[in-house]
């Protein structure tokens, strides 16, 4: 079962599969194995989940940095892979991705201004004067003073470098930006600045974000909806308030309970669900429900039958045989 394609979907993903060959070329890592969802125009769509579950892989597939091995990704209802080459190239500029490490994204030998100008030049957008103006506008938007333009990356702080990378992505006026762990390396105060900036740009420019992070506080602060990934699949998807306050899937419950809380010891509850056992390999995932090897509620049926991806409550999807039981109880 897949969600209905809403007509306000800027991206529709249907049964997405991405496989990688292992180094010895003997097996396939099913990094993403059958994921379907829509990203709605103007929303922030958060993706959280287990380390290595396929979040970055989905992000890269969404902007066609890698080609799906199965399923479809539609941008505004259209399959970009069916476009003529030229049109595909210009189409891709509307869909950008920003990664965690700004150092990897910036050429250390290029000045900040040249870095911001580069995508415009590659796109041959407008005249030289127009390109310069757009670059300055983008820097202004992210709060970078113009005199920083003459500097090199090593002369900037981490937060400033991350803003440069954002400015660079903005020059082409994209419709959607995938943000993959973009604030993880920033301290709390700069993190706040950058997140406020994202919110402001969304309000002013109608941007859509797909926000991938391990930071549950960040994702629930800025997202309208949150998807939870485990071993190549979504296990839950719903409105932020529902997922973060009344999670339906046992993995989501464990994840939320493990968040470290910046509170003194007397105020922290002791309600952590500790997951037992190792994370299974995506080369050879468990039969039935993939979470069953670590789920405290697993029953025999969990090994036999893959749980349906179902809309248990309006807009709130889950893949667990027992998610509709009001209270799970350990067997």
């Amino acid at each position, binding site marked *: 079962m897949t969600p209905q394609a809403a007509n306000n979907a800027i991206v529709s993903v249907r049964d997405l599969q991405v496989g990688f060959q292992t180094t010895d070329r003997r097996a396939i890592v099913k990094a993403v194995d059958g994921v379907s969802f829509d990203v709605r125009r103007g929303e922030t769509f958060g993706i959280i989940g287990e380390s290595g579950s396929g979040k970055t892989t989905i992000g890269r597939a969404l902007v066609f940095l890698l080609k799906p091995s199965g399923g479809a990704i539609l941008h505004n209802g259209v399959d970009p892979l069916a476009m003529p080459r030229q049109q595909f190239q210009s189409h891709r500029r509307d869909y950008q991705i920003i990664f965690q490490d700004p150092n990897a994204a910036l050429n250390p030998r290029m000045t900040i201004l040249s870095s911001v100008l580069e995508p415009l030049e590659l796109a041959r957008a407008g005249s030289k004067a127009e390109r310069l103006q757009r670059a300055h506008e983008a820097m202004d938007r992210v709060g970078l003073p113009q005199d920083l333009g003459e500097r090199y990356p090593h002369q900037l702080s*981490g937060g400033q470098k991350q803003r440069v990378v954002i400015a660079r992505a903005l020059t082409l006026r994209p419709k959607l930006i995938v943000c993959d762990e973009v604030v993880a390396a920033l301290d709390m105060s700069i993190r*706040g600045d950058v997140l406020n900036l994202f919110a402001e740009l969304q309000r002013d420019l109608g941007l859509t974000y797909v926000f991938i992070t391990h930071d*549950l506080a960040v994702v629930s602060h800025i997202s309208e909806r949150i998807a939870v990934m485990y071993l190549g699949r979504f296990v839950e998807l719903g409105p932020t308030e529902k997922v973060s*306050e009344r999670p339906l899937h046992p993995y989501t419950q464990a994840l939320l309970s*493990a968040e470290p*809380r*910046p509170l*003194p*010891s007397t105020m922290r*509850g002791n309600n952590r669900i500790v997951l037992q056992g190792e994370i299974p390999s995506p080369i050879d995932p468990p039969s039935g429900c993939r979470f069953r090897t670590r789920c405290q509620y697993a029953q025999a049926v969990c090994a036999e039958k893959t749980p349906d991806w179902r809309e248990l409550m309006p807009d709130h999807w889950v893949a667990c045989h027992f998610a509709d039981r009001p209270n799970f109880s350990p067997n």
Partner: protein
Amino acid sequence: MAAAQPAQRGSEVVAGGPQALMSVRGLGIRFKTSHGVWQATRKIDFDIAPGERVGIVGESGCGKTITGLSILRLLPNNLAGLDGSIHFDGTDLASCSTREMRAIRGRRIAMIFQEPMSALDPVFTVGHQIAETLRVHTGVTKEEARERTLEMLRRVGIASPERRIDDYPHQLSGGMRQRVMIAASLICGPQLLIADEPTTALDVTVQAQILELLRDLSETSNTALMLITHDLGVVAETCTRMITMYAGEVIEDAAVDDALVRPLHPYTSGLLRSLPHLSPRHGKLPSIPGRVPSIMDMPNGCRFKARCAHAVAGCEKEQALLDAGNGRKVRCWRFRELDLPGALQHAATAPIAAMVASP
């Protein structure tokens, strides 16, 4: 082994004292750059007791990583100079010979880095890498090294280690690689473990396992932990003490619960205010206005002055880390008169209220 008491949580913790395992005094790090010599940190003072778990927090670029690296003398080669002393169990690490340093590094003090992939060699099995560290430092036999490696892998929570010991790093998940790194750093039973953002790249369930392991080690093996992180939640749940740095200086040093409940420095209070846990959902996140001054034109006296809402004439006077009683230290002229909000004030109105334990 002398039974040094593991440090207790709460305000009775006394920083340093005669039983300190490591005492850092007046540590300053200078780099050569194309613009001349750059004073990256200065006058860093702190102590770590055996078995104590100290969190180091502070803004990006304030000098946390280089302070950790300086303890093992692993600073980049454009180092212009190292000032002050780092007394570790009788040896001054800032001035000891390279030979002495080599005997300490990896054996008595170990360090783990954020990215486990770059620290593990892709061409050797994980078991080989751990066992080699042990053999280099202790000269045990191959068989014994393998035996102890298996035991250590089990200890860091790797299920069926005899099946994993001959795996190459790429065959393990990120969380397992990080645990392998921790096993390698612990195999020689160090007295001090320096961990720089060890869990930032991991999901919170794997993070929780690793932090539990680190806590457990300090309690059972009396290993002291210096944990560098941006995550105040991680500090709250793992550490006994929290040292806050700003612009190359230590600005606050206190028991974790004290720092969270009643921060004494306006910057520490500002960090707590910026936490998204503690802000209403979807609203604007508070942040500390302004930027860290450039190292090139550092103001006199308090380096936080231009951003501080409580600054007054006099804050530009030359400053020291002041004794605030109860083992607390703070670098602020006005700490006695200010009453700054901590985590509790913010928590009352935020989504985290739901997570606060009911009494």
